[in-house]
Every structure is written in structure tokens, then in C-alpha cells.
């Protein structure tokens, strides 16, 4: 993306950023691209981004970035409407791609969760499940992570401007961690680490900072989570403890959810 070139708005892709159930962290990743932010606003016509601008648009969007999971009846209706308005729909973050931490209720009794927090639960409008955008509409690209990687977001935006497919890694955190030369958390420290089954993209941050990976970027393709769960058991972890390791920000991703359901 060339800095300082301002194309006419007629040729700039119209970009929207919307959110459902989430923490705002993934859309904040856009504002955290401090060095590239102004260039991005020159290459793209950001027509909808409530967190950043008072200008509002209903669409249509050339590119729609969707943060958050679908967790209320209103959201389930709204995502269908937004899909019609978007040429390319990109789900960003663990909430939008797997349901997020709030999908823990998918494995439990939603009403009990609700009643534990709200004294007058009859006022709450909420679905029993928190699900990814792809469970409701077709999604063109998914950026995983809790939060997403700023570098991957930039790669996606660059690819969109040139009409090519974004290059997103699918190897395990473990492979990146080995290249960084970190001592192995699992082997050397004997602590649980989801690195062998988690998709990289974060930069193997947890093992680089002295702790086990906790799966922010979700399962990699063909992750052998059952084997890793057995390894945790061999390290002396109870089934309940093993289940908790997988029951985090991508608990609803099938590979992780299967372990939680088998072990809890």
C-alpha cells in the first residue's frame, strides 16, 4: 500500500467494520496499526466503523470486517442482512470464527449462566448458543486469533487491494516456536502447552514469554488434539484439568470442543 497516494473515492474499496458479541479488541487491532493507519484510510474508503467515526453507512460494502459471535436473536437476523450488503465478508477473531469464550455456554445450560449474572433474567434477550459467523452465513475469509494478528490483517488488506488470496499460515505454533529456539514448555517444563495443535500467527508468544500456549488462534488443520490431551494426562493432569486447557477462547472449535466434551 503506497503511502501518500490518495486515490479518488470512486476507486477505493468501501470497507465496513461491524461487531457482535465481543470485546472490541479485534477492531482495535486496526487502530493499533499506528504506522499504517493513515495509509489504510487513504487506500480504503472506511464507510462504517462506529468505534472510530461518526459517519455511518448501511452498505453496500466491498469488504465487511465482522468481529464478534452471534449470540442474540437480533444478531442472527442482522448478520443475514449484512451478508446481502457485502461483496467480501471477513470474519475477524476467535469470537467471529469459533464463538469465543462466551461459547462456553454452548456446552452448558444457558439459562443457568444467565440467571447467575442477572437478577431479573426475564429482561435478557439471548440465544442459548454463541456461534461463529459461518454458522449463519457464507464467510469469504477468516482471520483467527484472540485477538487477531495485526500483520495478518495488513496482509489481508493488501491482498484485497491487489485481488489475490491472502497468505495466511496454517502451521502449528509449535513449529514457529522451534524455529525461535525456545525451550519446550511441554517437554522441559512439563507444563501443558497447546502449541502442537494450535495454528500459529501470534508469533509463538506464550512459550517465548515463559508459559504454555493457550490456543488463542484455534486448532490448526488436522490437529491431533486427542493425542495432546493424552500427553497432558501423562503429565499428571486430571481429566477436568485437561478439559479446562481446551475450554478457552476457541472452545467451540470442533477439535477443541471434542476434547472438552470427552474429558469433562
Amino acid at each position, binding site marked *: 500500500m503506497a503511502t501518500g497516494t490518495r486515490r479518488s473515492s470512486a476507486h477505493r474499496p468501501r470497507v465496513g467494520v461491524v461487531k457482535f458479541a465481543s*470485546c472490541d479488541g479485534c477492531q482495535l487491532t486496526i487502530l493499533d496499526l499506528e504506522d499504517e493507519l493513515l495509509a489504510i484510510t487513504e487506500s480504503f474508503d472506511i464507510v462504517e466503523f462506529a468505534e472510530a467515526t461518526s459517519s455511518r453507512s448501511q452498505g453496500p460494502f466491498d469488504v465487511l470486517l465482522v468481529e464478534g459471535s452471534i449470540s442474540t436473536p437480533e444478531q442472527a437476523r442482522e448478520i443475514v442482512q449484512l451478508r446481502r450488503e457485502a461483496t467480501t465478508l471477513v470474519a475477524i477473531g476467535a469470537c467471529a470464527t469459533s464463538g469465543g469464550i*462466551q461459547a462456553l455456554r454452548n456446552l452448558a445450560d444457558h439459562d443457568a449462566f444467565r440467571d447467575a449474572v442477572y437478577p431479573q433474567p426475564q429482561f435478557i434477550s439471548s440465544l442459548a448458543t454463541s456461534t461463529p459467523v459461518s454458522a449463519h452465513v457464507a464467510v469469504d475469509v477468516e482471520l483467527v486469533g484472540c485477538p487477531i494478528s495485526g500483520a495478518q490483517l495488513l496482509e489481508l488488506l493488501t491482498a484485497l487491494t491487489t485481488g489475490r488470496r491472502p497468505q495466511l499460515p496454517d502451521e502449528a505454533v509449535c513449529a514457529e516456536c522451534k524455529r525461535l529456539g525456545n525451550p519446550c514448555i511441554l517437554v522441559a517444563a512439563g507444563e501443558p502447552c497447546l502449541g502442537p495443535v494450535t495454528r500459529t500467527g501470534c508469533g509463538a508468544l506464550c512459550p517465548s514469554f515463559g508459559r504454555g500456549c493457550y490456543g488463542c488462534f484455534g486448532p490448526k488443520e488436522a490437529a491431533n488434539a486427542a493425542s495432546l490431551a493424552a500427553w497432558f494426562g501423562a503429565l499428571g493432569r486430571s481429566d477436568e484439568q485437561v478439559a479446562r486447557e481446551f475450554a478457552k477462547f476457541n472452545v467451540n472449535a470442533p477439535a477443541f470442543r471434542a476434547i472438552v466434551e470427552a474429558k469433562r
Partner: protein
Amino acid sequence: MTHGMPHDQVHDGAPREHIFDVGMLTRVEGEGSLTLRVRDGAVVQAQLGIFEAPRYFERLVVGRTPDEVIDIVARICGICPVAYQMSAVHAFEALFKVQVDPQVRALRRLFYCGEWIESHALHIYLLHAPDFLGYPSAIELARDHRAVVERALAMKRTGNALVARLGARPIHPLTVRVGGWSRIPTRKELQALRPALDEALATAQATVDFVTTLTAPEFKREPRLVSLRHPDEYPMNEGRIVSTDGLDIAIDSWRDAFAEDQVAWSNALQARTHAGEVYLLGPSSRVTLNAARLHPLAAEALARTGLAEQIRVNPYWSIAARAVELVHATAEAIDIIDGYTAPSRAYAPWQPRAGATGWATEAPRGLLFHHYEIDERGLVARAQIVPPTSQNQAAIEADLTAFAPSVLALPHAEATLRLEQLIRSYDPCISCATHFLDLRIEPADR
């Protein structure tokens, strides 16, 4: 996503009720709206509507270990994850009687300095300044004042770099653990941040001078302000809970003075004093209640603005309080880095024990209280998390009710802008407010 325009309702024999709907609030964190009910020219109710979906965090942490809770509560808010981690870790350490190394303690203040810098820089320049200067966003602001926005982004980047140096990444940092950190930085790693911090301090000082050139709408009220207060430090992680009307209680005793409830008319959990009074948290409260504990450079900056009284009585001038705190946070970060020697161990050993514990720390937007009950296995049995925005909500509504009559005669777009500006001046973080619900407005006499 968007909401209706103003509409009048005329009822047979009833007073004429006017619903003034601002629609979706922009340049705030999360999704909310404002509706005013106006009857015979008087604002009878201001309702800050939040349609952020509930995520049940207080239930999500049940059955988890303290260190898991620290990872989970960060996800309440992508803007202030440090605050959630700090309130949680201090609550657990208080219960487990963990003795934390003084340098570990200093690093936690440094961590908070980073979050205050990035959050305040974001709010002042990208969310709030466009209001004062008449732009719909910082994107348009940057077209006319690119150098200003670039300096602001550089300062924000420095705040994020500080959080990332300690926490591995700026959003949802991952090194905080009970007893300390999973990894602590070397002195050299911290020193590498000094040039950027020197520049950020200069930008912070320029920000103070910049905000004094702004013109804020006239608005004066006598608010009840609440924050932490520490004997010698500007408050972040420790102190007592104090107020402008004489409250002075222990940091774990929030429940002794305040309570939150789901009020039927508003469909929202709101916090108030036990006497039912509203109160306000955040930078204006901290500056007002802790001016004597500001870093000397920040105290000098506050004096230079001449706005100390305006910060107390006029919410629009919170932008000056944030600017003063930017000077404080950058100056203190420099002091901490210069005085840092790596502790011998990253974290102190600890053993869980059963019991109840509470703690409050100062999030960028104000006092954030956590309360946990830990069971015999060392797992969370119950949790209460009270974010600053849910505590501020009732005070914001009271201020809106007081302010709105002065703008109702204006054209709708202009009135909307003025009211939105007032709401943005509190820097509401709606994503944090896990208690906020979808608010439906029904005229009382329909």
C-alpha cells in the same frame, strides 16, 4: 444497527411526550444509544441504551484457577485488558497473602502506565478531539492536521509497546500471573523504550497545551467523584476508595459503600451508593482527588492549564484530565525504567486458600472492582466484576438530563452532536459493561 429519528407522540388528554433518539453512539467502545424522554419541554428521563450482547463473564470464570481467570477476564475488554488483569491478580494475591517483589510491583505500575498512555492517546485524539474541532472522525482530522495525528499515533504506539514489552502483546497480554509475571524484562529491554518514551512525554506535554486551546461547552454541576487514593502515589493498583464527599474505605470494601442492581425501568445493572446516589469515576475523579500525588511534571502541567476546577465541574474538560494523566504516565514510566533492576525471580510462589476477596484498581476509565469467592480446591466459586462504565452510567444519565434542555431547541443533528460529545467525554467503554442490556424505550403513558 441504526435507530430511528425523533418522533412525537400525542396522547389523548396526556401531556405531549417527545422521544429524542440520538441513535447509535459512535466513537465509543462498544454499542450503545441515547434516548431522551421530553414532556412539555422538560427532560424527564435520559436513558443510555446499551445493546452489547451479554457474555456472562462472571459465570465464565466459575470453576477456573486464578491464573486462568487472569487470562479470561482480559477478554471483557480489548481496550483495557490490563485493568481487568490487575484487579484480578491483586484480589487473588490479597487472599493468598502473596508477598510480591518491589520490582514486580513497579513493573505492574509500568504496565498500567502503558495502558493509560495508549487508551488516553486513543481517546483524546482519535475519539474526542474531532468533536472539539468539528470533524466526524480522526480520518478527516488527519487530512487537515496530519502531523498532529501522526504524533498522537506515535504516542499511542509507545503505550502499546510498553504493554507489549511486559505482556507480549498490547491486546490481551499474557504474562500476568499470581505472584508476578511468567517472564520479566531485562533492564536493557526496558531501556530500549526510553527514546520513544522521551518523545511521548514531549507529545504529552504538547497535548496538554493543545487541549487548553479547545473550547468546551458551558456546563457546571457538583458531581460526586470517586477514585482510589494512595498515601504517596498517584493511584493505580493500591490505596483506599475515597470520594469528594468524604468516603474513605478499604480497597476491598467496595460493597460496603456501593451496590449494583438491575433497575426495571432501565433494563440495566447500575451501580449507586447504598443511599441511591450516583457517582462518577475516571480521569477527572482521579485528578481532582489526587492532584497532590501527580508526578511533578504532571502537577506543573495541570497548573499550566488553569483547568483544575473545570475538570471537577464540567465533564467536557475530562480531555484535560486525560492529557495531564498522559504526562503523569509517561513521566512515571521513565522513572520506573530508570530505577529498574531485574528481580531475582519473575514470580513468588503461592498456595491457594479458600475464602472471599475483593480488589479495585484504576482502569483508564476509572475504578474497576472485582470480588471472588475461592473454594477449597482453589477454584473460583463466585465472581462479581463491576466495570467503571456500569458505575458511571447513572451519573452520565443524570448529567444528560441536566444538560439536554440547553440543546433541545437546536436542529436535531446539532443537538445530537452536542449530546454525543457529552457522552464521549466520559469515554464510555460499553464492551466492558458486561451487565448492560438491550434497552427498549416505551413511553410511560402509551
